[in-house]
């Protein structure tokens, strides 16, 4: 059984693309449309990695990460922010929220798998 990844993005096309790519790479995948849905899912079960978009309705990515880091079971889980900008400002915010790393959109499927392999050795 492959590692279980939670994808959080409000864009259906990106969700599908990331899901398909990771499944092709042998991962088990669950998707959520916003931070709130992701948080609800995480409270029910554990995921090996969370990939989250930043800008989303209801709850944004950074708020989700802060919430997850407050949960004992997600203290060390790799959490990546998918973002369109890798500015210092964004990085500072990501770092303080507790994200493991960031990945800039757009990315291609091959890169995504490389990154996934790094964070889930």
């Amino acid at each position: 059984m492959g590692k279980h990844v939670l994808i959080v993005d409000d864009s259906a096309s990106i969700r599908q693309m990331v899901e398909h790519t990771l499944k092709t790479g042998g991962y088990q995948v669950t998707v959520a449309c916003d931070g709130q849905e992701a948080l609800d899912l995480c409270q029910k079960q554990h995921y090996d990695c969370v990939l989250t978009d930043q800008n989303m309705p209801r709850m944004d990515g950074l708020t989700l990460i802060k919430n997850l880091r407050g949960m004992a079971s997600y203290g060390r889980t790799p959490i990546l922010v998918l973002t369109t900008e890798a500015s210092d400002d964004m990085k500072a915010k990501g770092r303080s929220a507790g994200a493991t790393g960031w990945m800039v959109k757009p990315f291609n499927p091959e890169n995504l798998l490389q990154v996934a392999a790094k964070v889930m050795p």
Partner: protein
Amino acid sequence: MSIDLNQFHAVFFEESQEHIDTMEQLLMALDLEEPDPEDLNSIFRAAHSIKGGSGIFGFTALGKITHVMENLLDQLRNGERHPDTALVDHFLTVLDCLRRILDQYRGGEDIDWDEVEEQVKALEAILNDGKSTPRTSATASSSAEPDANADNDAFGFFDAPEEEPAETADSSGSGDSENWGLFEPEPQAEPSGAEAPDTEAAFGFFEDPASATEPQPAKTASAASAAARPDRSKAKAATPESATIRVGVDKVDSLINLVGELVITQSMLKVLGEDPDNLDTLKMSTVLAELERNTREIQESVMSIRMIPVSFVFNRFPRVVRDLASKMEKQVELVLEGTQTELDKGLIEKLVDPLTHLVRNSIDHGIESPERRREAGKPEKGTIILGASQRGGSIIISISDDGAGLNRGRIMAKARENGLPVSDDMPDAEVWDLIFQPGFSTAEQVTDVSGRGVGMDVVRRNIQQLGGRIEISSQASVGSTFTIQLPLTLAIVDGMGVAVGGQTFIIPLVSIIESMQPPRANLKRLAGSDLLHVREEYWPLLRLAEVMETQARSSDPAEAIVVLIETSKRRYGLVVDELVGQQQVVIKSLEQHYKRVPGAAGATIMGDGSVALILDVESLADIVRDPIVEEEIV
């Protein structure tokens, strides 16, 4: 590893379309005095989502425009800039441009890069028009050259205490080739250290020489996408319009639930069938009743998946009305009613053109100029109400305006000019019907709004092709209402089975008022036509046996059954041998499988395998002779 991104394009197009629509609606509803921060956020998010997706899927033109848009919207939502009408108008034209580009990508056509550049420049000009704070110019400059530092800093780690620093640094160092890196524990050792040349990576891309998807300076990108285009257009040609539909999870869940019940019923039937000698007939009939219920519920559930709210069509009209009204120098308020009424997706898509035409007509011909309205003692602002509602098995869509009403005199004159048979004592309804004739336009001057050759005849034809009908009611200086009646769905009809000469026919249930064995005393025969007096009214009778050229069991209507039918044209009674029963039938096209049969709308296959014709009660009404007015009979 190769993953074909094309498979996600349809979803991307659809969601971008929705984002564009959302932005348009929010922008138009935006309170310029006190904009709702949540609205501004939603508009920003929509632009942001399009940008994100277009980057991944390689739709560079969309990405370029939405990127600058996003910067501008960011200023709005941060309160660094205040929205005004000019800005909203500008955004609306940008949205139109995004729609065109989206269509170009969707159709595999060439992208109009000049337009893209123009839009980007115009947006940047607004972005930089003196109001720019330092922050703004920084974003603007990064937007101007998004590729300058595109190849690095695309991925990185924040503090990762569990990792060894050495490995971390190593990975970070390899970022240039692999385009990812790790943050070291100390803030000052951010990847920028390892990737010195591009400290300000506000916008980064994975470099992949094989892909033509990164935003590059316009010319390169244009050339690259031109090179990539033949493939894409070929792929598109194979699937001209891979239609998708978005369905609420609750609908799918309920369907799954129903299928579960069906499986239970099936296993119950299996158990019963295993021992045919000791068949418990009572149990059998219970289970069969259950099966019938399951089937009906699944059918309804599946049909509902195809149903979407009419708001999908209606929501485009505020914009249409806004644009047209300002072009025609009229003041028009559009009111939408019943926008959550659900209708078959196929029907909704085909409604767009006729409805657009009717709304344009209402603004162009219906609503008067403010001066003329004032003279007539009306408020200067005219009102158009676009409404939808469900009535039985039909959907009613109406467009009413409080304008001048149809001009009887002008329609009559135009009809005479076109050589149509008209007389001065024609009832209004028949006069209004004339505007559905081909080549009929009474516009005093052909504007670029209406009167462009697409006439009301096309509107009516479109509606009729959907199995619907359109009616007009109008009153001079009070206004006009166009009412469209459409079937809820095209595939299944609730019908009453009737038998004549040993054959079964189906009458759509919606047209039936009641069925009866007529008392002999109520039957009259006058000038060769049979009449039935019932419900305070004389109903002309039509013998189905004669229409279908078969032999009725009895020629005496008193020994037969009369089904009272109501159509848009008239009411009449259909004489049949007997009633078979009520059932839902699946409509199969006769033309496709056999040939057109007058009086039949289609055919269906009955439970016993026989074929039954579904009667077209509207066209049967044409055969019926008009009832003679009551006074003459009495």
